[in-house]
């Protein structure tokens, strides 16, 4: 009892003293040589000047906590907390960042314990000159296995904590929706896929906020629907993959795996509503996936692997490929291996090209094509000028996947399971002009302890330079309206003969006569 009373008295005295000090900081604090433990880990990183406050929890034992955030210029921020949860005022934070572009921000933490204040060594983070795109769009889902029930496509503002649901799968009568892709980061032109028993398996095209479901399967290219897509910079073409994926389980390590039985690439011509392809990107003897247009639209990057039976799933490794393309004449070049999986001794998937076209970031994993399910997956970059690649120094012992670039090419966003080994979270890393990535930081949340009970997975995050204008209701109506549906005319015939080196059950194809293509 006495002890408690003494503690309260001390608290009151301390509080009065802090108020009296004017700056709100304890002055007689004992110095601690090391920085404090904080969660999330916002230490020694580079942050964009337009990021939301890096709220954090001080993981040191104590009865009272003060965080003092200062920069080269601008007013310092002092946040006091009884619980150790430091919630930084948004306006003060924005002002401080604006004053300190290219400078260091210092976070000094004071902890009151054992009847006196302790001052920890300052944590330092650098504010970059370059901003990050204003919005992040991701698919909200639980860590799932075979079945799914509820998904949302969610938009998060990066300079605040505001989130809005773009599309709820309940509003399209259930089913799956995935792989939203924007044209050059602008949200008025986008695609995503729907898998619904009621509304089919279309690729949904949004152009100037008009929704058009496109049933790519009617072209005869594949019975599988479009999956991973990439907008040509001109906005006239969409490269897409068709994949025959199925999940499976391991009994050791990461539980879920995913098998791609067959995949090919094709291109959808938006204005003409037709699908074309080329043997270079849909070789019947290989699996091609993960299309990504170069910044100038003259090359298509993708991953390609030989067809092997399912029992040899550990031997399936994808090469990183590129193929030239002339969008005017629609002529394809020959596919070229940029990085051979045999030489790299890993499977190279999920390539994304930087906006200046100089870098390609991709995932390298032990085998397979879905990096998010593979603990071994790490991030690498390829310099397109030199043709050399190197591992980024931002990898963890857990899976890194879904990399992408900010519109200015200075930020890499990716998903990592490093926090707990199971749930995917979004991280940002500053990518400097020398091709080096800096220590990444996790997407900030208003509640510093948010990730302690966040059992959701951030899937397929994409950066956008503006908020999505179209409402969820309009998106859903567009999908559900059969009158807006497009069905590209048949442009391919399934070949009767199968190539000798193709695995059994895989279909080959050949384009049909040109006249049927011109009919539209």
């Amino acid at each position, binding site marked *: 009892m006495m002890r408690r009373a003494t503690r309260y008295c001390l608290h009151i005295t301390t509080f009065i003293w802090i108020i009296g000090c004017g700056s709100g900081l304890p002055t007689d604090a004992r110095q601690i040589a090391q920085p404090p433990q904080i969660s999330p880990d916002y230490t020694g990183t580079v942050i964009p000047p337009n990021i939301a406050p890096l709220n954090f929890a001080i993981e040191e034992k104590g009865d009272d906590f003060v965080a003092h955030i200062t920069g080269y210029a601008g007013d310092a921020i002092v946040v006091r907390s009884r619980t150790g949860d430091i919630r930084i005022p948004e306006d003060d934070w924005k002002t401080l960042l604006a004053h300190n572009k290219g400078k260091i921000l210092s976070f000094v933490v004071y902890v009151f314990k054992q009847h006196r204040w302790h001052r920890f060594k300052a944590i330092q983070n650098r504010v970059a000159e370059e901003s990050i795109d204003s919005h992040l769009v991701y698919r909200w889902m639980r860590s799932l296995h075979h079945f799914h029930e509820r998904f949302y496509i969610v938009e998060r503002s990066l300079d605040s904590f505001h989130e809005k649901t773009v599309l709820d799968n309940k509003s399209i009568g259930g089913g799956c929706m995935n792989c939203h892709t924007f044209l050059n980061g602008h949200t008025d032109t986008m695609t995503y896929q729907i898998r619904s028993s009621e509304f089919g398996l279309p690729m949904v095209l949004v152009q100037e906020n008009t929704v058009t479901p496109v049933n790519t399967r009617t072209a005869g290219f594949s019975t599988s629907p479009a999956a991973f897509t990439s907008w040509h910079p001109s906005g006239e073409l969409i490269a897409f993959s068709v994949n025959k994926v199925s999940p499976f389980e*391991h*009994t050791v390590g990461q539980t879920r795996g995913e098998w791609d039985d067959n995949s090919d690439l094709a291109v959808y011509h938006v204005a003409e509503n037709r699908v074309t392809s080329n043997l270079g990107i849909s070789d019947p003897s290989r699996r091609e996936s993960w299309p990504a247009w170069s910044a100038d639209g003259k090359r298509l990057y993708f991953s390609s692997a030989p067809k092997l039976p399912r029992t040899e799933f550990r031997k399936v490794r994808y090469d990183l490929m590129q193929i030239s393309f002339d969008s005017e004449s629609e002529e394809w070049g020959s596919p070229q291996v940029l990085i051979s999986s045999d030489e790299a001794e890993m499977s190279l998937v999920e390539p994304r090209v930087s906006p200046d076209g100089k870098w390609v970031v991709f995932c390298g994993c032990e085998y397979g094509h879905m990096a998010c399910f593979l603990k071994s997956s790490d991030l690498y970059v390829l310099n397109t000028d030199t043709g050399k690649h190197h591992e980024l120094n931002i990898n963890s012992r857990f899976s890194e996947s879904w990399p992408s670039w900010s519109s200015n090419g200075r930020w890499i966003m990716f998903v990592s399971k490093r926090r707990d080994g199971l*749930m995917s979270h979004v991280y940002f890393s500053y990518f400097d002009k020398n091709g080096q990535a800096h220590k990444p930081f996790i997407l900030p949340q208003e509640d510093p302890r948010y990730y302690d009970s966040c*059992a959701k997975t951030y899937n397929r995050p994409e950066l956008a330079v503006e908020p999505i204008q179209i409402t969820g209701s309009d998106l*859903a109506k567009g999908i559900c309206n059969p009158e807006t549906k497009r069905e590209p005319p048949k442009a391919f015939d399934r070949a009767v003969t199968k190539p000798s080196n193709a695995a059994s059950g895989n279909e080959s194809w050949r384009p049909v006569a040109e006249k049927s293509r011109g009919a539209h």
Partner: protein
Amino acid sequence: MTTKRPHPPSIAHQKRKGVHRALYIVLPLLAFLYIRVMFDFRQLHHDRRRPFLFDTEFIEPFLRYVAGPVDCLASLITQLYIYPWVGALTLFTLLGIIYFTTRVILRSFGQPPRFVSMLPAVVGLFLLQQHITVFPLASFAFSLSMAAVCTRCKSFPMVFRLVLFLVLSAFTAYIGGGTVLLLAGICALNELINHRQRILATAFIFLGAFIPFALGVFLYEPNRTLQYFIATPLEPSSPELHPFELCWYALIPLTIVATVFANRLRPLFHRAIQTFCILIFAAICIAMVNHRFYRYRPQAMNYYAENEEWNAALAYANRFPSEATIITAHIVNHALYHTERLPHDMFDYPQFRSGRVLLLGGNELDSLPHVANRRSDVYYRLGRIDQAERWTHEMLTSQGFLGHALHRLVAINVLKDRPKAARVYAGVMEKTVTHCETAAALIAAFQNGTLERSIQEANRIRPLLPKTDYVGEWTTRDILFQQLQEAPANRMAFEYLMAQFLITGNLKEFGQNVHRVKEFGYREIPRAYEEACVSYILATGKQPPNLDIKVQQYTIQKFARFQELYRQHHQNRRDAWEALKPEFGNTYWFFDLFGRTGLLSPPDFDTKETSP
């Protein structure tokens, strides 16, 4: 001028008033106790629970669709069932709202006959026990409350009533979904009977139909039927339309009409209505007692399994053998294993010849309720932790963030050496109604570094975890064999494997493995194994290899009797079933002969002669 002094109330009148006052206290109390007794709240919680988390991220999606707010409330109520007195009080409050609002509505049409006002609440109670969830009940109560407000404003001008209806109906359509149609119906009757406003009555009906449509502009729902009828008996996602549910909805307009007529035709009609109500109450009481104590409840076995009430599960399976399914047989075997009776008494309970019983394999079972729970449970205890993880995640998908599933994920992640992921699931668990205290203890253990010690079965399961990555489509036999190979001391894998051999009639592999009983501490051959050994000896002419425990003479003699009896009836399998069942219905030989234990109903017999 002289003023008349009012007569003092007579003694009889005062007494009557006193009795009425006492009844106002006693009757609700009795009703509350009745609810408490007639509902098995823990069972109800298990059968009807919906996830609920005290978390804005969880609640926010409910606000995005029609009837979402009531749906959210209903989810919370189903979680409160775990505390029976709280559950009873919540239901009592909901039914009380229905009763009082019905009374208010009926009074605006005249003096309602006694008991009539109670009818919707009582029928609602009956339906809640058997057919409906608390979601439509809560929605019904909300809609009636709004209707009561509308009917109480009968002295207000027409324009005011119209505006009031518009506001309240939009509100009701959003909060309570399709029950806005009920509100529109009551308000229309109010206009028609109390105000003689046919035009306004017709307008209310049209507006009632239009408002859900207009709401669809803001809260899009592709399924128009769902938009109109969510939270009503006509909701398309309801598995079946029960006529009682429709009657329940029709009761309100019917009672209004009855009230109007009763007021005109007193007292004969009044009496008839009262007698009718009393008969309905009596019938409902009988039906509820029957349902509570004498009827088979499909989810009861799952409930016992989930709560590890193994003896209760076994007793229940034997009490209702005619209702046995593959799930029942699965739970029976699980319960027998936990009570250490599987090798002895497995044929004393409902069993089918099916290779899928023990692990519930096969995609066609995926859609059955609680299959994910059972699979998660059995794989977890077998040490097949990745499969357990998969099925626990499927549980979350099909049933949402339920406390016990989250608890299982904490354990799984601890065993998979992902303590931080375990901490995340404990963090979610902390937001549940049912497991918040357990979660707090787990979080404290995480912070102290003693999380693994705080998981009950972790020490037992850790040595059972496979070290080989088995990827592929495996049969039940393969999985059990792999588990036993990975951990030869895995008792559950051994007993399940032997049970699998017996259930599928794989005597050859049974004989090859039965000698391992000694490794698990058996000094005598367990009864079911011993019976199978006799069959093995008969089939092969020799003892099972390496088995140095002798089959008891008693069992050999028993088999001789079985053979003798079978020979007498072998011409007709039905006769054989009837003759063998009393003495041998619980033996391996009987099961092997008929593909099911004697406790079950006989199979469809053909006349073909078969030998045991």
